[in-house]
């Protein structure tokens, strides 16, 4: 599905250059459900931006399917995002002046699908996330969990091969979080690759595999074991080690 090899990323801060990603190497197979964990400053946001083709990297290779993603024009990047990727954000990022239906239909607008057709399709996806009756409501009238469901429907409507979820439960209570993770699991079971960035070990525990980032590097099993003196981390390590 996607493969990163020796990806490096620098940020210029004044005269200095900050090395935020160091030789990132990992692979995610088709249909995998993977979590990326790391403390703030570990580089996980930058990694997500690169995976989401919102940002470019300085060296290395990023393959999405058979396509190498590097130095794309904005137009091409927009096209790939539209066709291959679905985004789910912590703060939902729904357009407040559009109804749930219109929000879900938006990616199809940029694919040039006619209004009638995309509203029809959007209604199906709203039904799939259990919000058929909320189609004509604006985000302001919905709860956090409902908003995130709308966002997930919007991420799915373009039939993406990869869903990128950035702290999808970060703004939700634990009960709603569980429901959203159920929904993501369901999507995963339907054959779509799902990548979740989180700092919540419970969320990570719901995935098949966790990639840990520390100081811009992917942690090796050895480093993981060393950090397992931390009881919380040990618990996570135990979970992720499980088949």
């Amino acid at each position, binding site marked *: 599905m996607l493969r990163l090899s020796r990806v490096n990323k620098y940020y210029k801060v004044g005269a200095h250059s900050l090395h935020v990603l160091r030789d990132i190497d990992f692979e995610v197979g088709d249909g995998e459900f993977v979590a990326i964990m790391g403390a703030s400053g570990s580089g996980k946001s930058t990694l997500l*931006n690169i995976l*989401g083709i*919102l*940002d470019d990297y300085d060296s290395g290779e990023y393959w999405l399917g058979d396509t190498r993603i590097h130095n794309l024009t*904005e*137009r091409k990047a*927009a*096209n790939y*995002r*539209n*066709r291959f990727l679905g*985004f789910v*954000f*912590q*703060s939902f*990022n*729904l*357009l407040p*002046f559009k109804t749930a239906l219109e929000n879900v239909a*938006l*990616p199809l*607008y*940029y*694919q040039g699908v006619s*209004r009638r057709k995309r509203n029809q399709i959007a209604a199906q996806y709203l039904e799939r996330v259990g919000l058929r009756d909320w189609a004509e409501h604006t985000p302001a009238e919905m709860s956090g969990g409902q908003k995130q469901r709308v966002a997930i429907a*919007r991420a799915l409507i*373009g039939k993406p091969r990869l869903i990128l979820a950035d702290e999808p439960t970060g703004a939700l209570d634990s009960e709603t979080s569980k429901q959203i993770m159920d929904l993501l699991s369901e999507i995963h079971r339907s054959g779509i690759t799902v990548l979740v960035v989180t700092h919540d070990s419970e969320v990570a525990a719901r995935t098949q595999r966790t990639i840990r980032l520390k100081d811009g590097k992917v942690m090796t099993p050895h480093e993981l074991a060393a950090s397992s003196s931390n009881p919380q981390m040990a618990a996570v390590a135990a979970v992720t080690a499980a088949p």
Partner: protein
Amino acid sequence: MIAIFLGVAVVVFVGLVLFLITLLRIAGVMLVQWRDLVSFDRWLEVLGTIRRNKLRTALTMISVAWGIFVLVFLLGLGKGLDAGLRHNFGRDSINAVWLYSNKTSIPHDGYDVGRKITFENRDYERAKLAKVPGAGGQGVERISGQYYVKGGQLGGGEMLTRRNGKTNAFDLNAVHPDAIYFNTHVMESGRFIDYADIVARRKSAAIGGPVRDFLFGTEDPIGQWINIGGVPFQVVGVFSDPGGPEQERQIYIPVSTAQLAFNGADHLGMLEIAVGDATAEQAKVISDQILAQLAEHHQFDPKDPQAVRIHSSVETAERFAKLFWLISTFVIVIGLGTLAAGVVGVSNIMMIAVKERTKEIGVRKALGATPSSIVAMIIQEAVFLTGIAGLLGLSGGVALLGVVAKFAENDFMRNPSIDLRVGVLAAVGLVVAGALAGFFPARAAARVNPIHALRDQ
């Protein structure tokens, strides 16, 4: 009229938008599609933005509408003023030069200053031949001399005129037949003085409407006799003048008859010549020639500014043309300045709107909006706003001009209006202005970095 005007303006406006899109497509600057323009979706997006920001939109539109309104109204008033003044100075609408005899102010050839110069019939004959040197050069097309029946420097002066016991004083002009071309008189009945009158020294008189009314009432004056300064004259024609009664309280008689009847010898006080479509320079050449002839035959210095006083309508006309050019330039500068302020306002407000919409634009980009689709959305909004506001201002200006034309028309203001060409130009300008106003905000929008836009808090 206003409806037709607006219709044309709207058609031109839409045509221009299509043209602009074609150009952009050919240039490959923007991958704008024809269907984008008729795209109901795009319009929904644009109208949605406008509806969400009613006050801001209204304020923006007012500034543009006001700019166009001021421009159109001032241009129309300028045109009305121009037409009014041209009408008022209708007498000067022909290219003419007037030479008035006067007194010398420079000693010459042994003569002292203050010597009175008097033109003669021979001067009239010689002046006829003056022309710009070279084959086909502009010459004198019309010429008339005038004998001042009562002496003096200007005009004929008033003479007592009688008929059947009624007496009144009217201006008497002893002239050649061409004199009528230097006025705006229109013959109502009969004829003006002609050359046969001059040759035969006939006692013919052409009288203005008020003169007829006073002396004849409702009677037909043609062929009847009146007494001017003790000499009987036969009325041969009646004229009117659009300039009003003041221009009509006049009597014209043949110059030759007047010279004979009022002891004028062969004297003339004034020569007036028409020079066709000569430029100011050519008119100057001709009048200088005549002046040289006069100087030679009357022994005065041709550089004497007082011996002969010269007035040229060609110069006056050019001075007026310059004045009008100044006025219209002024109007255009003011109007365009106001319009420019409006456009900058639109641009500014849309720039703020883009800043406010950073998050939205970021979301759109993450979902697959290309930079060109964002640019097209913003520019379409700007062109739409400027266009609608401009057309409102345009119609307001045209309407107000209509009101002014109807109720406030006077001697100085005639038919204030703007022509279709200006309307078309305004429509063209609005599309360009709208696109310009949208350009910078659109560029800012296209540059929105989705990473920054989507960053939480």
